[in-house]
């Protein structure tokens, strides 16, 4: 599912920001943008203080899947990991953003009658939360299995609509299942081997989910993450190797790829 973007970047107002556990959620007005499809992403840059920060960075806009889209507004979620997310974390209501999108292609609905299982965690929450909202509004049964580092990060699970049943795992056992999200996913698949898995998360988690789905013969759609300069196919920087040979660009051929096309999720 792909919604095309207005051509060019647009300057939009930040309408608010809050902390959810370890994550920052940023809200922005987007009165002129189309309604995006879950799994699609935007390129974001602060309208000021972008390119003149620490170490003269950030320079390039940052690719972020949207968390929510409603009534002319968008929300995003991220964790401070570098100069770009640090600058975005500093934005408050009244500041402005450069926004390009929606970009890429989103998730495709499961065949009639099949359940959807959302698997992922960490900063992979946004596309899963958006997809849970869309599926929940239809007649698709959906459940989520979500993994986090610890209880503080696991507060991010609150961003997935409460109407979607969810199980949480943490690395340190401070909340939910003490272990990996793939252990929860495996239990879900034991109950329903015909479900379609939708996954997004840090590379190692995504690779574990991909490998499990392949081993169990389960259909899966993976929302990939890659460093990219442009988001619209211009720079050829965000490629991943695919089974049919060569590379595909995560920005225009993804970010959602059918798991059958990918051998292994690269660590970068």
């Amino acid at each position: 599912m792909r919604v095309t973007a207005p051509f060019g970047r647009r300057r939009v107002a930040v309408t608010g920001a809050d902390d959810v556990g370890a994550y920052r959620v940023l809200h922005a007005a987007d009165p002129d943008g189309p309604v995006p499809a879950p799994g699609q992403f935007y390129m974001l840059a602060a309208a000021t203080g972008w390119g003149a920060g620490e170490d003269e960075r950030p320079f390039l806009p940052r690719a972020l899947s949207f968390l929510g889209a409603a009534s002319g507004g968008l929300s995003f979620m991220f964790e401070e990991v570098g100069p770009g997310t640090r600058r975005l974390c500093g934005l408050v209501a009244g500041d402005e953003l450069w926004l390009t999108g929606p970009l890429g292609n989103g998730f495709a609905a499961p065949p009639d009658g099949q359940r959807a299982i959302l698997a992922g965690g960490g900063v992979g929450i946004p596309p899963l939360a958006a997809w849970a909202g869309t599926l929940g509004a239809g007649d698709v049964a959906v459940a989520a299995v979500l993994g986090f580092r610890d209880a503080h990060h696991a507060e991010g699970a609150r961003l997935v609509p409460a109407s979607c049943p969810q199980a949480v795992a943490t690395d340190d056992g401070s909340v939910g299942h003490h272990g990996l999200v793939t252990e929860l996913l495996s239990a879900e698949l034991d109950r329903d081997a015909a479900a379609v898995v939708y996954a997004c998360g840090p590379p190692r988690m995504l690779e574990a989910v991909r490998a499990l789905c392949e081993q169990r013969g389960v259909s899966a759609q993976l929302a990939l993450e890659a460093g990219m300069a442009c988001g619209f196919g211009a720079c050829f920087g965000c490629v991943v190797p695919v089974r049919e040979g060569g590379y595909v660009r995560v920005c225009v051929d993804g970010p959602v790829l059918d798991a059958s096309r990918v051998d292994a999720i690269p660590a970068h």
Partner: protein
Amino acid sequence: MVDFCAITLKRPIVNGSGTFDAIAARRAFGVALLRDFPFGAFVSKTITLSPREGNPPPRLWEAQAGMINSIGLPNRGLHGYLEHDLPQLAELGVPLITNVMGSTAAEVSQLVEALDDRDEVAAIELNVSCPNVATGLDIGADPGSLAALVRAVRPLTGKPLIVKLTPNTADVAAVALAAQTEGADAVSLINTLRATALDRSGAPWLGGVTGGLSGPAIRAIALAQVAAVARRVSLPIVGMGGVSSGAHAADLIAAGATLVAVGTESFRDPAAGCRIWEELKSLQIAGSGSTTVNAAQAQVEVDVNSGDSA
């Protein structure tokens, strides 16, 4: 309207080769892309005889006021370009410049001959940032190698031949002069500057180990090289390097460029070409035309010649 090698452009702004994929952009933005296409002419990414997958990732590194790319010239190859890309690019409604690269004069000749047959191609740009098989040096780094290449391909086409100069050489103007002597119609510069980046363990970050630096970080170098080339050759110049505003474009024009190419800025702002053209127009209206340009050109020459006195 601008005249460049007898090609008429609706604006003097083009894209740098390999910095804008109009076919992918149309998937992302739909027909809105065509309503005000950012560039007066479209320059293709580098086309090679055989298809290339490009370098293993990671391919990008965010640098200070710029970026390093190590993409490795992925493309469908000549046949794929002619069959698949060219018909779609022809729908853009602007003149098409096809950029080609080969590792021998024979390869480049084959590319040029095939493109000469196609009416959709308005001009051919030679990417000479490619090692000479015999010497190991980039063809574009050595006036002698460059002269031999242009001499070989010049008779094969009546279309304008543009030589894309590399900045990774001791005397770019000497290479430009060789291109002019052998009958090239224009030169374009600067390509990216060779660069690398290390991860925290001290190992190369880029899959291709080295890459090319672009963006505002190289703007001052581009200005100096365009000015140096403009003093030595009479060919029209496509100037580029870190242009992100109309004022930067005006600087390159003042230094001697006929056209200005936008590259990295399109990554940050897909419609940068439109904005830069609007900004350039308002500067040209605000200024007093050619007098201002000439004064600015003189200023650039003074600054370039005065070394580090600034």
